[in-house]
């Protein structure tokens, strides 16, 4: 049997590796996405004081440390059984919204953007953020950099540090917001809203204006009918910071809606000998392997998933774009809800809708009169026992689960991180893309673009999942014959 190794840089590179096996006809027999790294946070966090977890687990991922910091902080609220005051909640969500703006921006322009801005067939060497800048103009590049800059300034102001924030406390937050700071944050939030609208316009012009791209988005190669997960508020609208976890089916019907503390009743993780990363699936449906459809417990937790799992957006402008998103992609309203969009490449668009929501939400909070209340650090005296906290990380629902002794020293820690949710779907998308393109052993340059796009729309954060950088994997495909002799080698940069 022939095999194709899609190996990030080579076997030595640490962070993700694809193996495609061809049958004797030279068609795809099977494909594996291997995650070759483990760091063991769930074990070495045991014995540590629980309150340190926001400052320990953010090191799981330097790309979205804010998400881990926040999930850990919420787990501490539950662990110590303290309800944060409303100002604390608002302060945290303000911080978190700012983070969302910068994170989604980076993905769209640096990671996802190149596919569309430069086109799937562009020269791989050009296919990076610098390429984008050259194409759309330096001023836009500067805007992107400015956007990151101002939001990281807010993150540092409220979280203490630009990367790996420290301010989270059980029931509280160590840093309050002064009036001067609020004025700055408000100004930045307004810029963010403008920037989000600008980005959506850019997507309109570059992608929706291009029939070839639209066809690509709607093509079967990039379609999977799975379950979708997302966090929603009491109106079933998307919320990143807090709410109930809602799962909807391929048909759009709600499967279940549960509080984070019940996660273990609904999620289970499988182990495969060929990967260090675990495969979560929906217990309520069951594991049927790497397949989609209503009978398979495989689910997806991405911007697209959140839109599909929700009834709408909590801010006006975002809601407009939400509706336009479904209308444009031909979704129908069934009893008041849009039927789900299954086209994976639409995730990029969904991400921009979320970008707008995050910016609007940030502005709302920055204008909140209560936001500058200095009382944000309560003294906590409760005896800790067990606590579960979750947030919507940009790359999926993130859950932290702690148990401690009476001194608050951790005895058990379980973490289900964003990208892990999507491990199975990503593997499936890769396989499908490969099947679509590899016929009778014929492999062409297009394969890599397709696989790459199938892969990247998830914005898979292997930092979160396995601790490498998000999806930015130079791919190399080597095709060997039965005797392992090299037939063909193609490579290009992924992301």
């Amino acid at each position, binding site marked *: 049997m022939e095999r194709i190794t899609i190996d990030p840089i080579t076997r030595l590179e640490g962070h993700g590796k694809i193996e495609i096996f061809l049958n004797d006809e030279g068609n795809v027999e099977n494909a594996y996405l291997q995650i*070759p790294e483990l760091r063991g946070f769930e074990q070495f966090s045991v014995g540590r004081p629980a309150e340190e977890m926001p*400052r320990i687990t953010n090191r799981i991922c330097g790309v979205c440390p804010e998400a881990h910091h926040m999930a850990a902080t919420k787990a501490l609220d539950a662990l110590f059984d303290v309800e944060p005051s409303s100002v604390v909640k608002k302060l945290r969500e303000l911080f978190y919204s700012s983070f969302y703006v910068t994170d989604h921006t980076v993905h769209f322009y640096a990671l996802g953007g190149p596919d569309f801005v430069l086109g799937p067939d562009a020269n791989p060497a050009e296919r990076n953020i610098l390429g984008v800048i050259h194409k759309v103009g330096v001023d836009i590049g500067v805007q992107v950099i400015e956007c*990151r800059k101002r939001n990281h300034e807010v993150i540092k102001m409220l979280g203490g540090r630009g990367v790996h924030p420290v301010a989270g*406390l059980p029931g509280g937050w160590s840093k309050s917001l002064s009036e001067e700071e609020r004025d700055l944050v408000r100004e930045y939030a307004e810029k963010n809203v403008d920037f989000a609208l600008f980005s959506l316009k850019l997507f309109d012009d570059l992608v929706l204006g291009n029939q070839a791209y639209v066809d690509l988005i709607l093509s079967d190669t990039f379609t999977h009918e799975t379950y979708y997960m997302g966090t929603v508020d009491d109106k079933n609208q998307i919320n990143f910071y807090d709410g109930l976890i809602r799962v909807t089916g391929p048909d759009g019907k709600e499967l279940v809606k549960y509080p984070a503390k019940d996660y273990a009743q609904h999620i289970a993780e499988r182990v495969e000998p060929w990967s*260090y990363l675990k495969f979560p699936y929906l217990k309520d449906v069951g594991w049927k392997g790497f397949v989609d459809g209503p009978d398979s417990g495989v689910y997806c937790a991405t911007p697209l998933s959140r839109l599909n799992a929700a009834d709408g957006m909590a801010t006006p402008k975002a809601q407009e774009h939400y509706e336009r998103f479904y209308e444009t992609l031909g979704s129908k309203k069934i009893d008041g809800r849009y039927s789900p969009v299954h086209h994976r490449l639409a995730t990029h668009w969904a991400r921009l809708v979320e970008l707008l929501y995050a910016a609007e939400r940030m502005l709302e909070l920055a204008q909140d009169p209560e936001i500058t209340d200095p009382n944000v650090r309560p003294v906590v005296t409760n005896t800790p026992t067990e606590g579960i906290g979750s947030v919507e990380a940009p790359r999926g629902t993130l859950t932290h689960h702690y148990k401690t002794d009476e001194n608050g020293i951790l005895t058990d820690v379980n973490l289900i991180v964003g990208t892990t949710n999507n491990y199975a779907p990503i593997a499936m998308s890769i396989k499908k893309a490969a099947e679509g393109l590899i016929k009778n052993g014929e492999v062409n340059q297009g394969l890599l673009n397709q696989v790459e796009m199938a892969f990247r729309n998830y914005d898979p954060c292997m*930092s979160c999942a396995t601790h490498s*950088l998000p999806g930015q994997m130079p791919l190399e495909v080597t095709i060997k014959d039965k005797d392992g002799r090299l037939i063909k080698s193609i490579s290009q940069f992924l992301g």
Partner: protein
Amino acid sequence: MTENGKPKLAMYWASSCGGCEISVLNIHEHILKVDEVFDIAFFPCIADFKVKDVESYPDGYIDVCLFNGAIRNSENEEMAHLLRKKSKVLVAFGSCAYEGSIPALSNLTTKPATLDTVYFDNPSIDNPDRVLPQISSQVPEGNLTLPEFYNTVKSLDQVVDVDYYLPGCPPEPEQIWAVLQVVVGALTEGQPLPPAGAVVGAGTTALCDECTREKREKTIERFYRPYEIQPDPDQCLLEQGIVCLGIATRSGCGALCPSVGMGCRGCYGPPEGVYDQGAKMLSAIASVLDVGDESMEEAELESLIQDAVATIADPSGTFYRFSMAHSILRRVKNGKGAA
């Protein structure tokens, strides 16, 4: 130097979180300058290169390699050796490469304990056949391999020689930019580099030097967990009983954590004169523990001190939060650290 006269820059992550790369991006507009001055020779996070390319380079082809991430598995170690061979200047970039950082908390436990917890004991696990990831495993279609997960996390200088250390988890962007400017100056205008083995992009004194909080004589009767107390906004946190590693941590970040009311956790590593950050921290705060005096009965004295020490939760995980791999003993004798 290369044909176009631009110095070759490489940046690589081993067992890391990517925060170092993000911090590099956080030099914001300067990143364009970096792109202008350097020729990227290897930078998985922003450009397309393969280890094959690196292997094909002549030794010392790369002028500066910023290596971040700890040595967690066999792959990390092999990459470290390759990049050492190919680089003129190898920089241990960030706390992980310098001293193990958070991943090295793993040295307080063991490989078997880790595998058990991750793959067998978690509440959400579904692993009836007790499957564990294997270095080599058979699937119907063929054989799949994985790198070896080590029992002990190592710092970069424990597997190869390191020219410079750039501390911080992650290093602060201003410090990164300052160091890059020095490197550029050295490579382009032949300005002198710091002495080999130096810690760059940081101060030499302890963090208190940068901390604006008011410091008095230290007498501490007991310690408080950060949620047990509302600290005075202007006074030294340690004096208020909040464990702050600033006294035993190298300056350079600008005392960010204390400025938002949280004790320093020591991510910049020990100051110039100290090797084992944890031991020094331990020695210092135990010394100023203001309980017991020479007039007491030995038994009474001991129990009083016991009680006060008991208010320090998890000394190993706190004093060695970032420096475990680079501490004198490097790891625990067995898994007790996690118990």
